């Protein structure tokens, strides 16, 4: 997709352009929300809110940020706010519940090696502290560069680097049993 051309059409209020934007980014935005929140209904809620906010603010989109980093920034902020809210804190207190919520594959599918591995990765990510989780999701699952992550989360590059490394070390400890 030609991002610049899409941005130009979006800023003109082209409804077709907005539809293209949602189609193009739905899985990425939903993916970040699901990895962060571990609950499909909540993830859909946040993903939808991300696009609605983008829709309202499209005319003010200055274009000095890339469209995808802008969307990731909105989604990340919404996820972190949701996780910081009082009722989410109660859920966060029970890591096992959060990890279980992250596993939305049926139990039967867990017998398949791939599915089991996916479930293990998801659980391990869900167990990470939120500020490390968002960094590893954006880097290893969404493929953003360190610089883009720093821009999305408004962090120093060094902070991104150290949080990512700590997140990976945590994951290594949890996923070692899957090592060949």
């Amino acid at each position: 997709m030609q991002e610049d051309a899409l941005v130009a059409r979006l800023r003109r209020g082209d409804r077709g352009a907005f539809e293209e934007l949602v189609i193009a980014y739905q899985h990425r935005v939903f993916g970040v929300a699901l990895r962060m929140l571990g609950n499909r209904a909540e993830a859909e809620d946040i993903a939808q809110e991300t696009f609605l906010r983008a829709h309202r603010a499209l005319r003010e989109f200055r274009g000095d940020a890339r469209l995808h980093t802008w969307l990731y920034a909105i989604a990340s902020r919404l996820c972190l706010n949701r996780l910081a809210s009082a009722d989410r804190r109660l859920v966060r207190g029970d890591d096992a519940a959060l990890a279980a919520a992250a596993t939305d594959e049926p139990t039967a599918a867990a017998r398949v090696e791939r599915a089991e591995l996916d479930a293990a990765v998801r659980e391990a990510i869900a167990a990470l502290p939120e500020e490390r989780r968002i960094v590893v999701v954006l880097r290893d699952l969404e493929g953003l560069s360190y610089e883009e992550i720093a821009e999305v989360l408004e962090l120093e590059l060094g902070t991104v680097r150290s949080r990512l490394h700590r997140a990976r070390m945590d994951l290594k400890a949890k996923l070692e049993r899957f090592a060949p």
Partner: protein
Amino acid sequence: MTCHEARDLFSALIDETLTREQRADVYGHLTTCAECRRELTALERTVALVRGATPVRAPAGFVDRVLAAARPVPWYVRVARAALLPWPVKVPLGAAAVVLVAGLAVLMFRGSQEQQQAARHEPRPLSDRAAPPASGPPVAPSMPAAPPPASAPEVTSRPRADSAPEADRAAGVASRVEEEGKREQAPAALESRDKVMAKRAMTQSQPASAPDVVARLETPDRDTAERGLAALVARLTGEIIARHFEGEAMTVELAIPADRYEDFIREAGRIGTLRVETERPAQAGRLRILVHFGTS
């Protein structure tokens, strides 16, 4: 380079974000440290596991739901929604509104002392024969409606309207205007209040509300003084509202036009020794006065 320093750079090494110098240092360490080589391999495997996870897909219909939510709602739909609120919403809303209005009405009526005073402002005149004068030796009264202030002004002072500051007079007028307003709002309720008041005065022989003025009249002969007071009140176009008795003590409750207050003070001072004990700020209309009788 120590093991700790080398391991801190492993993530950046995997992501190829190290400078050439840093990379050389890390590789230099790895050639001499088998433990760090194993550690790096394990970390690379972990990153590969995470990156290899099956990508998440948004649920079916997600795009349509977002587009529907982003569509602006036309004005006529918004109006129709507001007008066609479902009954389960409308009925409690209506009930809540009724309760709110009723509650506010009660609060407005009973809210303040000033409003209560307005309700009591013109009580029904009671018969002068409500209670006969007590016989026996006169005794100093012992039931003041309000405690007398430390320095009660003497009768010779000019305490009322003419000497009151302009501000007080304005406040009095404003208060009177407000009283009139209140009375217009609920005349029936006020009338019934007056009846209750009058009944209480007769049955309990107690002044029921705070009067505008409380005075003490010391005379050698209470019966004569009382008759003189009644005559004075009649002359000033006022009225005796009630006589209250507590043991041997007597208090006369009366009302006079506010603009005759000075005449009242002057003339009552001739009947006996008059001390004004409490006095509310000057106001127009009628003044309700309690006179405690005592013997001098």
